[in-house]
């Protein structure tokens, strides 16, 4: 049997422009005029979101696609689903493709649940006769039968999601593309959906491509894994092996990032040179105790007088959940016009805030009025947090699994009142 998907030398190039992706005619005109009068043409940066992708996927395979943010996972699915064309190479797809790049695509709040099933189903590639046939099953599976003839705007977001999942779970294409959609919704319903998809994929030999950051569902669901990094396939094969390789490589901690030439903002205002993590004594570290304060320091050079901007970070956990974002609202430089020169900014993540695990930090320099991102570097630093039983922590003496995205040390008052 021929492969369900044959991909040869596939590549996708995006042009990076400083201006917004959709443009105002005004900008085009001014740029054209500028280019006439200045000899030097504005060098359009471009980057390859995907490069040299070669892979065969057999019918009935359930492929998980993993990789960091920006590795090209979603771009690959978008090309296979034909939402965006490749720049080079080609792909042969044998079978009808159903894509689930986001549940509930095309849902309309003014239409009833039933009407939305028809609309969404047909957008996802179902024929009307197929929807008629499946309608009862879809409504039944969603568990919103009571409200099925009520406009969608009266649904809670949970109910909308269940209805959307339910349509998706009843798609019957030969090739199904799923992008992270299972990361939302309540756990029980997610399980129900995964179960349903697994059932049809096994009994009907459906090919599934599944992009997710959730290693658990990937391991459970997929028969094989593709690991992407910087737009290239790094590895393909057995899920357990690749996931553990990926996790150990991905989860390497990194206390320090030194940009050799610096990262220069698109408007040439500032150059980011260094970012590092340290403890209270300013020793550079990537391992901390739950109780410890963690310092994040950014070093940058302001290249133009009068620049007004601020610095900040995004913090993610290993499931890629954005735990918090922070920017400078306290220092004396806030909203001030800067003089040229080298600057250093340190933010302190308090102790007793994060639980054990690996965390990643993205750093940014940006103007706030209006928001204008000058530099945004993703996942430049990462660190690991360990339990410290020697000091009072939220864990107390409890040694077992202790879930939760954050772990603040809460002050309790308790007393005998009677």
């Amino acid at each position: 049997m021929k492969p369900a998907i044959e991909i040869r030398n596939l590549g996708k190039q995006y042009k990076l422009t400083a201006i917004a992706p959709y443009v105002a005619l005004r900008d085009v005109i001014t740029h054209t005029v500028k280019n006439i009068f200045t000899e030097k043409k504005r060098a359009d940066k471009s980057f390859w979101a995907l490069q040299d992708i070669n892979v065969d996927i057999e019918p009935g395979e359930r492929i998980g696609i993993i990789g960091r943010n920006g590795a090209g996972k979603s771009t690959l699915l978008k090309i296979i689903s034909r939402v965006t064309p490749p720049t080079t190479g080609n792909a042969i797809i044998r079978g009808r493709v159903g894509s689930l790049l986001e549940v509930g695509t095309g849902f309309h709040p003014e239409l009833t649940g039933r009407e939305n099933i028809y609309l969404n189903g047909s957008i996802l590639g179902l024929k009307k006769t197929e929807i008629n046939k499946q309608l009862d099953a879809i409504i039944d599976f969603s568990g919103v039968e009571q409200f099925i003839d009520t406009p969608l705007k009266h649904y809670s977001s949970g109910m909308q999601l269940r209805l959307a999942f339910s349509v998706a779970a009843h798609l019957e294409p030969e090739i199904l593309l799923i992008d992270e959609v299972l990361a939302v919704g309540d756990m029980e319903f997610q399980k129900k959906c995964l179960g349903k998809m697994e059932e049809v994929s096994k009994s009907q030999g459906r090919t599934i491509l599944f992009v997710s950051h959730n290693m658990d569902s990937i391991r459970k669901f997929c028969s094989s894994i593709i690991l992407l990094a910087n737009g290239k396939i790094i590895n393909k094969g057995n899920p357990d092996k690749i996931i553990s390789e990926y996790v150990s490589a991905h989860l390497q901690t990194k206390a320090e990032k030194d940009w050799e030439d610096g990262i220069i903002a698109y408007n040439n205002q500032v150059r980011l040179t260094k970012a590092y993590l340290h403890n209270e004594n300013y020793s550079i570290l990537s391992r901390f105790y739950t109780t410890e304060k963690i310092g994040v320091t950014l070093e940058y050079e302001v290249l133009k007088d009068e620049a007004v901007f601020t610095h900040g970070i995004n913090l993610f956990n290993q499931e890629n959940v954005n735990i918090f974002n922070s920017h400078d609202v306290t220092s004396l430089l806030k909203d001030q016009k800067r003089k040229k020169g080298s600057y250093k900014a340190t933010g302190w993540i308090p102790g007793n805030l994060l639980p054990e695990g690996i965390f990643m930090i993205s750093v940014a320099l940006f103007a706030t009025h209006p928001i204008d991102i000058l530099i945004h570097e993703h996942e430049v630093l990462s660190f690991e947090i360990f339990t410290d039983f020697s000091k009072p922590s939220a864990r107390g003496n409890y040694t077992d699994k202790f879930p939760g995205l954050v772990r603040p040390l809460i002050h309790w008052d308790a007393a005998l009142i009677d």
Partner: protein
Amino acid sequence: MEKLVTTIKPPSGLSLGLKELWQYRELFYFFTWRDIKVKYKQTYLGILWALLQPLGMMLIFTFLFSKTWKIDTGAITYPIFVLSGLICWNLFNSSVSHAGDSMIQNANIIKKIYFPRLIIPCSAILVALFDFVIAFIIFIILCIFLKQPLYLTGIFYFPMGILLSMIAAVGLGFFLAALNVKYRDFRYALPFLLQVLFFASQIIYPLQSVQSSLFKYLLAINPMNAAIELFRASLSTASPDMKIVVIGTGSSLFLLIIGLFYFRKTEAYFADIA
């Protein structure tokens, strides 16, 4: 079962993709159905709005130009004259403005799911056609009521007038839909452009009343003049001015080709820039 084989390649060449459009006819139907349903769902008067607007305009123009300025419209009474122009114009006007906005309105779907992109402006235009059909029925009833004679040539002239309006609207609509994705400026320029076209069309005055024949045939480049000329030919024994019809047909075909060509050329990248 025969499997569907699709080859995905970098975009090259141009084809109309009519076969693919046919494959997706159900989605086409659902988009149109959605737009019509949503349009009238929250309105108290619902579908009546398709009638009230042109009828109201008819009353205003009749009062202004028939009673006050006394424009000579030959064998056709002024209310019928202006209403016939207005319903053709509304078909064109709402087709162009809805189609022009349609790609941005549906950007979230375009970024997620593949289907022939032409479906979107096409279904926006079908919604306008739906409104037109209702307005047309009322127009015919009104003609009978006001004792406006309808001639048998209408079997030919009505459809020709409607077809010509549609061709021009499709061409301009496709062009603007594609242009709007890249340059949002056109969203703001469009109402002005349509306003200019309104007065350059023989809606409230007959084109024959234009004195200079050079100016008259320059105005005929606006395809709506030819469309209305054909449409009104059903209402009198006079035959339409063929020069106007030929010029207008030429320019609307030109619009159609430009619109289709530009849309097909740029559609592959809509998902990247929408």
